[in-house]
């Protein structure tokens, strides 16, 4: 009296057994019937851009990390290892598509051209959000795990209602898939066939918890239970991510509804600058993933196709050094807001109650400063 428990399968999913990829760690190009079609236009110049993008993003991350260690920022969640997942996803979108990130997607802000001071301000404790969401078409980074997936879905519902062909991208981690909100987002997205792409960066950990705590089966399978097709791709293969998100975005744009993309990757660094990953994972695991580094891999691929790797590396280095200097300058530039700004923007029109508190705060400050 038992039913067998087969290996989970679903026709709604691609890449369940092994994540789909087109570049292996040595940088050779593999055929992928599914992915190839959508990256036919990727030539040396596109590859170079992706390489530079990833390098720049990594450098921003490194600089911010270092600044935090030096005390210039209060906290930093590093993205190292996830450059391909983030760059590939963003480069698959149109400028008008709206992105709803979590706190680790610095690449999205950098590539969407946000002012670096805005990117860093949150992590200096100087602001609760950085860039202008409408200028960058990028919502503020979200700290409440999973909340933004509903926002992306609602955005997409509204886009569909208005007959727009813009779409929404929801970014979240492996841990987030356990939150009710992320699951409700899939319910709404499926029900309203909302043009939203769910990008799950499975970096193997939610702080200290390995992904197995969240799920005993691949995360991409989750989406199929909601009737949402899923693509599981090698998240350290920028072309695979680019292809998958392009496919998903195109489905969304043409009325096909939501798609779930699981980018299987690894967080090379600590969860944040206050974390101590030595407590929960061993060096061998980290070393194994280092060998799959997304940037090295693309560099090897460029070499294989005979691209001028030295020149490209040099170009990237120049861009990296430039942005590194910008990052440091930006961090310096960020000033703490005026204390009184805490009374601003709570409501459209200040309430009498808050105006009274503002006045009291002002008087108190003046009294402490011995002014007047």
């Amino acid at each position, binding site marked *: 009296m038992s039913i067998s428990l087969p290996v989970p399968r679903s026709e709604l999913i691609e890449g369940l057994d092994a994540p789909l990829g087109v570049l292996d760690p040595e940088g050779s190009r593999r055929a992928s019937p599914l992915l190839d079609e959508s990256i036919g236009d990727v030539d040396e110049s596109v590859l170079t851009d992706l390489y530079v993008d990833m390098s720049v993003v990594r450098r921003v991350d490194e600089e911010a990390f270092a600044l935090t260690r030096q005390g210039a920022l209060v906290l930093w969640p590093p993205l190292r290892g996830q450059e391909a997942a983030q760059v590939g996803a963003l480069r698959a979108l149109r400028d008008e598509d709206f992105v709803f990130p979590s706190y680790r997607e610095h690449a999205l802000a950098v590539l969407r051209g946000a002012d670096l001071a805005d990117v860093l301000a949150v992590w200096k404790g100087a602001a609760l959000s950085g860039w202008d969401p409408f200028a960058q078409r990028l919502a503020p980074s979200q700290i409440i795990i999973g909340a933004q997936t509903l926002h992306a879905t609602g955005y997409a519902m509204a886009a569909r209602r208005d007959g727009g062909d813009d779409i929404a991208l929801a970014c979240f981690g492996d841990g987030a898939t356990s939150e009710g909100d992320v699951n409700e987002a899939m319910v709404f997205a499926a029900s309203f066939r909302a043009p939203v792409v769910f990008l799950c960066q499975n970096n193997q950990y939610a702080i200290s918890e390995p992904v197995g705590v969240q799920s005993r089966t691949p995360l991409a399978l989750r989406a199929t239970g909601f009737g949402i097709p899923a693509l599981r791709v090698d998240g350290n293969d920028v072309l695979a991510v680019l292809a998958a998100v392009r496919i998903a975005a195109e489905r969304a744009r043409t009325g096909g509804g939501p798609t779930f993309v699981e980018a299987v990757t690894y967080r090379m660094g600590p969860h944040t600058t206050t974390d101590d990953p030595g407590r929960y994972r061993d060096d061998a695991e980290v070393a194994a993933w280092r060998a799959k580094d997304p940037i090295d891999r693309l560099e090897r691929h460029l070499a294989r196709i005979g691209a001028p790797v030295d020149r490209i590396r040099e170009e990237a280095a120049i861009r990296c050094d430039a942005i590194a200097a910008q990052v440091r300058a930006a961090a310096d530039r960020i000033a703490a807001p005026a204390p009184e700004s805490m009374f601003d923007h709570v409501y459209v029109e200040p*309430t009498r109650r808050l105006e009274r508190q503002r006045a009291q705060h002002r008087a108190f400050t003046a009294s402490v400063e011995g002014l007047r």
Partner: protein
Amino acid sequence: MTAETLTLGRAVGRALSDALETDPAVVLIGEDIGRLGGVFRVTDGLQARFGADRVIDSPLAESGIIGAAVGMAYRGARPVVEIQFDGFVLPALDQLIAQVARIRFRTRGRVRMPLTIRLPYGGGIGSVEHHGESPEAYFAHTPGLRVVTAADPQEAYSTLRAAIASDDPVLFLEPKARYWTKGEVDVAIARDLESARLLTRGRDVTLAVYGPLVQTALEAATAALDEGIEIEVVDLRSISPLDVDAVVASVERTGRLVVAHEAPAEASVASELITSVVERAFAALEAPPERVTGYDTPYPPSAIESHYLPGLDRILDAVDRTLGRRSSHELLEGSAP
């Protein structure tokens, strides 16, 4: 623009329909609001008239409803959400507190959140658990949200229109026990979202109430007059922020304050109003203010809800106390209170 006689429920429906008509950005979303017209029939006919993409039957998930409405607002919509009953707003508290209330502040004014959340609340309808509660204090304690209610059809119409027009997120609490109360509605009458109104004038006691208890307070004022006691009834209307100025002005005339609501007393709107008045009109107070509220217990079975809810007699009992008249407290055994 002549007035029409409507029930409070129909006035709400009328406000929704007028808002949908006036502003194409307005979208309604909630459970059963479409085909069924809502469990109270407030949205009756709106889906047929404005279409299923403007009057949206949502999946059964309150956090999802609020979170999706946030996303819609990002794309320029002005969502009006219905949460079916007071008790069912709880799964949405995270989205309401950490998102809806704060996104404007978080983005230094760049992202508006012009959501209206409609929430039937309050007891006295003889139903089952979670259908008679008054959760307003959770929202009053949450900066960035406006919390308003209405006591009659005109108020319901005008307040809801103002809520929908506001770029702040507004929680509009609908006193469900008063859905069938009838009254004149003039759609031309506008109101703001922050001022109380004085309903009666009197020299003895200020009685501050809102929503379902406004009617009770007016009856109390009438009854008190028989004994020569003049009560100023203040309909607070806005629960957060409170119009403390109006209450202080009244207390400066009367010297006495009674605050009544159905929600429990502890860390409540009544606690807030009394504290605010004490801070600003201490010298004017001739007696300690009184609160008449639900007790600090979960909402009881409806068979005994009338004992839990503040009624005419409990309010008058408190009024008597502020005036130093004989009240039930003389029957208290032992030392309490």
